[in-house]
């Protein structure tokens, strides 16, 4: 957008520049005319003064009421004096100074001529090119039609009683004025050329700016389009994220349900033994009562046994309740203790499946993390190992749990000696709803949720190594 604003400024500047150049040129032409006019005015003023001086001089010498021709004809000495006097007025700019007397409308007669090379004789008839210009009662000038660029003729008449007695004529050289005019013309031509060049340059610049503007506009339009697309995409992504969150919530819910099922299963395993013991005590009490063998001591022993077993069952419930309670704060705990607590929950079940547990847990391996979530993941890995060992059928079934520190990272390994994960499904085992277990046994959410918990909440990683000899899942924190 800034670029476009700049181009507007550029256009405005080009127009301003063009207008300035035009005004300058116009101003120059006006000045040129003014100078030419001024030069002419100055020359005419000078001519007027000169001819007035001559006129005054003549009127002083020649008496009134006598025509000049007759007087000069009869007074040759005056004629010579006047000729010499007029010669004094000659300067470079005055080509010819002469006195004429009108004869008729076309012809005149020379009275005095000061020219050196082209001197007319006294009384010589003269036919000028524009005779009408000479019949004037006031000072007058004209440019020659044929000799326009060479000189102008200035005429100052000597008038007596409304009659022209003589004409003081000066052929004034325009050479100097033309030199100035020529210089001005050269300057004007140069200025015209410069203006033409600048105009061309401005035109090119404007053209360039116009195309640049168009290109910029296209870019802005493309950018706007892109922005719109981006917004659409953002919207879509948001929608997708919402959808995924919904899905995640469903998965989480399903995962919780699955975990709950697993927990119930484990509680059922844990309760089986105390329930048997309670049942045995109850049967003993019933048999002793039926046989009349019951005595307060045996009743007390059986009741104590039932009480103990009931307490054991209650502890199991507490443990599981504690495990299932959501956790919001990190806590510092010993990894070994955490593993043992998990084992307490699942070990009876593992034993029931003839699976032996081997522990290789480093001492004093403390970590600050979400304990319950880690327990949840570990429990899930142990359940998977159990199912994998059952499915494989290899004997003896064994799970090795290792916990150790490596390069500032704590690693917890769950290794089984099963048959390993087939290569073709290795890439998919962390996908949600992916399971190899028979229908109704697995949800396909365990590993997906475990990795999600480790990566997103515990800020660690969960990965695996699998061979024919078994699979190792590694939690790295």
């Amino acid at each position, binding site marked *: 957008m800034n670029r476009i604003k700049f181009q507007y400024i550029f256009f405005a500047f080009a127009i301003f520049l063009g207008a300035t150049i035009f005004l300058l040129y116009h101003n120059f032409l006006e000045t040129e005319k003014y100078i030419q006019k001024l030069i002419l005015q100055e020359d005419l003023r000078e001519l007027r003064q000169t001819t007035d001086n001559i006129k005054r001089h003549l009127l002083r010498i020649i008496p009134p009421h006598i025509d000049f021709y007759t007087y000069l004809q009869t007074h040759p000495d005056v004629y010579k004096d006047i000729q010499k006097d007029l010669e004094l007025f000659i300067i470079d700019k005055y080509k010819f100074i002469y006195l004429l007397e009108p004869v008729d409308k076309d012809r005149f007669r020379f009275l005095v001529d000061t020219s050196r090379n082209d001197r007319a004789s006294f009384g010589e008839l*003269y036919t000028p090119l524009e005779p009408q210009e000479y019949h004037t009662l006031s000072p007058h000038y004209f440019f020659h039609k044929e000799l326009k660029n060479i000189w102008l003729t200035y005429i100052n008449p000597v008038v007596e009683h409304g009659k022209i007695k003589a004409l003081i004529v000066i052929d004034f050289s325009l050479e100097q004025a033309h030199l100035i005019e020529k210089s001005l013309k050269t300057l004007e031509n140069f200025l015209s050329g410069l203006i033409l060049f600048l105009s061309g340059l401005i035109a090119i610049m404007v053209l360039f700016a116009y195309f640049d503007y168009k290109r910029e506009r296209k870019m802005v339009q493309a950018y706007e389009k892109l922005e719109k697309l981006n917004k659409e995409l953002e919207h879509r992504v948001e929608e997708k994220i919402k959808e995924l969150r919904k899905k995640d919530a469903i998965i989480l819910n399903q995962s919780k349900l699955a975990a709950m099922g697993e927990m119930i299963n484990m509680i059922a395993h844990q309760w089986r033994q105390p329930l048997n013991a309670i049942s045995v005590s109850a049967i003993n009490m019933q048999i002793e009562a039926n046989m009349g063998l019951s005595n307060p001591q045996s009743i007390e022993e059986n009741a104590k046994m039932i009480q103990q077993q009931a307490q054991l069952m209650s502890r199991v419930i507490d443990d599981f309740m504690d495990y299932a309670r959501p956790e919001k704060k990190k806590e510092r705990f010993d990894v070994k203790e955490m593993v043992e607590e998990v084992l307490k929950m699942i070990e009876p079940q593992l034993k029931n499946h003839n699976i032996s547990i081997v522990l290789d847990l480093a001492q004093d391996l403390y970590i600050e993390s979400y304990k319950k979530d880690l327990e949840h993941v570990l429990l899930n890995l142990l359940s998977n190992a159990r199912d994998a060992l059952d499915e494989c059928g290899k004997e003896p079934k064994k799970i090795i749990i290792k916990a150790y520190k490596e390069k500032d990272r704590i690693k917890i390994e769950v290794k089984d000696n099963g048959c390993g994960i087939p290569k073709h499904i290795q890439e998919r085992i962390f996908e949600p709803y992916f399971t190899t277990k028979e229908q109704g046994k697995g949800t396909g959410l365990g590993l997906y949720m475990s990795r999600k918990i480790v990566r997103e909440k515990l800020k660690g990683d969960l990965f695996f190594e699998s061979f024919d000899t078994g699979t190792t899942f590694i939690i790295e924190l």
Partner: protein
Amino acid sequence: MKKMILLFVPLVLFAHIVGLKELVQTLFPLLVHKRIVKVYTSPSFFPLFDDNSTFVLVEECNQSDLVFGDINCSKPIFGLSYRFFSTHPNVIGAFYYRKGRPQLVIKMKSYEKYFGHLDPSLQRYAQ
């Protein structure tokens, strides 16, 4: 037709491009009252008279109707300077420049002696 042409004489005279050749071609037959004029002149002016339908160049001045140039001869002369025009008795007219302006003058006294009356269209140049 000749008179029509003559009306243009001043213009012809003063037009530098047209020059002297056109002047003599229109002026001389009118002055001499002949369709073909025998002219005596110096070789430098021969090109002015190369129109055979109007002029015949003669080798002796006595054979001519009119002498062109400032040449001393007993025949009527058409001079090329005011000085010659004003001093020579046989000069009937002249053409010269004064103050950059072309001047055509005819000396009536001499002209009438040789050719009688002057064509009215040339009266304005008569002295």
